[in-house]
């Protein structure tokens, strides 16, 4: 039996060479790109760690948040739901149905239509509570543009535009920055 030297995940391992290849030169190392398993596992907490914003260099970015059992269960179902089912689910969330209370919106977003993402984002803003900015990448640019227009007009005084601005289209971003400049 001949062994072939291989670098896997940054470690050197030896794998058995198939019989037919035994006569050839087999000791050439094959480099396999290093896969950051820890990073992938961290992202399995999904969409929460989406956008990282640095206000402070000491900011702790390792805070691990896990889905609630309800969200976890829903995430396993979502791929199997059709558009109508998902739309109905969003309607339930918007109607504050107790059955869907406590669901993690950010985790659901990749499975939703853009229109539903917009509705959930606006609802989240209107409710005045803390807006999960991880849902912003899934919101349409036109919806974000309308939100910025409203913010400039004095609505949403507590909106954290620092979190929002990376996702704006060029026109809305220019408007927002002109507005911030005019405040100085």
């Amino acid at each position, binding site marked *: 039996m001949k062994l072939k030297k291989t670098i896997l995940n940054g470690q050197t391992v030896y794998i058995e060479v198939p019989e037919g290849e035994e006569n050839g030169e087999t000791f050439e190392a094959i480099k396999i790109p290093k896969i950051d398993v820890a990073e992938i596992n961290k992202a399995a907490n999904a969409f929460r760690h989406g956008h990282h914003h640095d206000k402070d*260099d000491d900011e702790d970015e390792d805070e691990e948040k896990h889905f609630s059992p309800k969200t976890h269960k829903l995430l396993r179902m979502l*791929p199997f739901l059709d558009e109508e089912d998902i739309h109905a689910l969003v309607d339930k969330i918007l109607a504050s149905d107790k059955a869907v209370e406590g669901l993690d919106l950010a985790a659901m977003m990749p499975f939703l239509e853009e229109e539903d993402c917009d509705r959930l984002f606006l609802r989240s803003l209107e409710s005045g509570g803390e807006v999960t900015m991880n849902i912003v990448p899934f919101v349409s640019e036109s919806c974000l543009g309308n939100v910025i227009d409203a913010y400039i007009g004095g609505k949403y005084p507590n909106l954290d535009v620092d979190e929002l601005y990376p996702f704006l289209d060029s026109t809305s971003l220019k408007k927002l920055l002109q507005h911030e400049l005019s405040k100085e």
Partner: protein
Amino acid sequence: MIDFVKVGNKIARLRKQQGLSQEELAEKLYVTRQALSKWENGSVPSIDIVLLLAKSFDVSFEELLCLDDAEGLKVDPEDLFKGQPRNVVLNAILTGKLVVDLPKVFPQFAPNERWALLKAIKEKKLPCSLPRLLMNLTPAETHFIKGGQ
């Protein structure tokens, strides 16, 4: 969507053009050198900092943020999420704004992200070579993607 890797490169270039070290510019902006280093490496500064940097470099914020360079999101297929928030990359793929070789990059996604992609592929919203993709799927994912075909 702003490309903050590009913005970071621009900040570094403008700083060097002014002959400033990271320490010197950080001191001028009342931030730490580490914070400045992060922005130069693609992290997102606050709006106040963007305006301050533009003023300090004597350029417009449009120029600093590369707003007039009409280019889409750029990613490294070997390291899809480098310098970009995961949600942004995922959404760009799901909406067709970013085209990648899905079977090749699929192992880089987390389980929930994989399911979202598989759902879009199954609903034919996302074009993908199934025979190549199948090699990268778990049995449950294979069952899901093959079901109903």
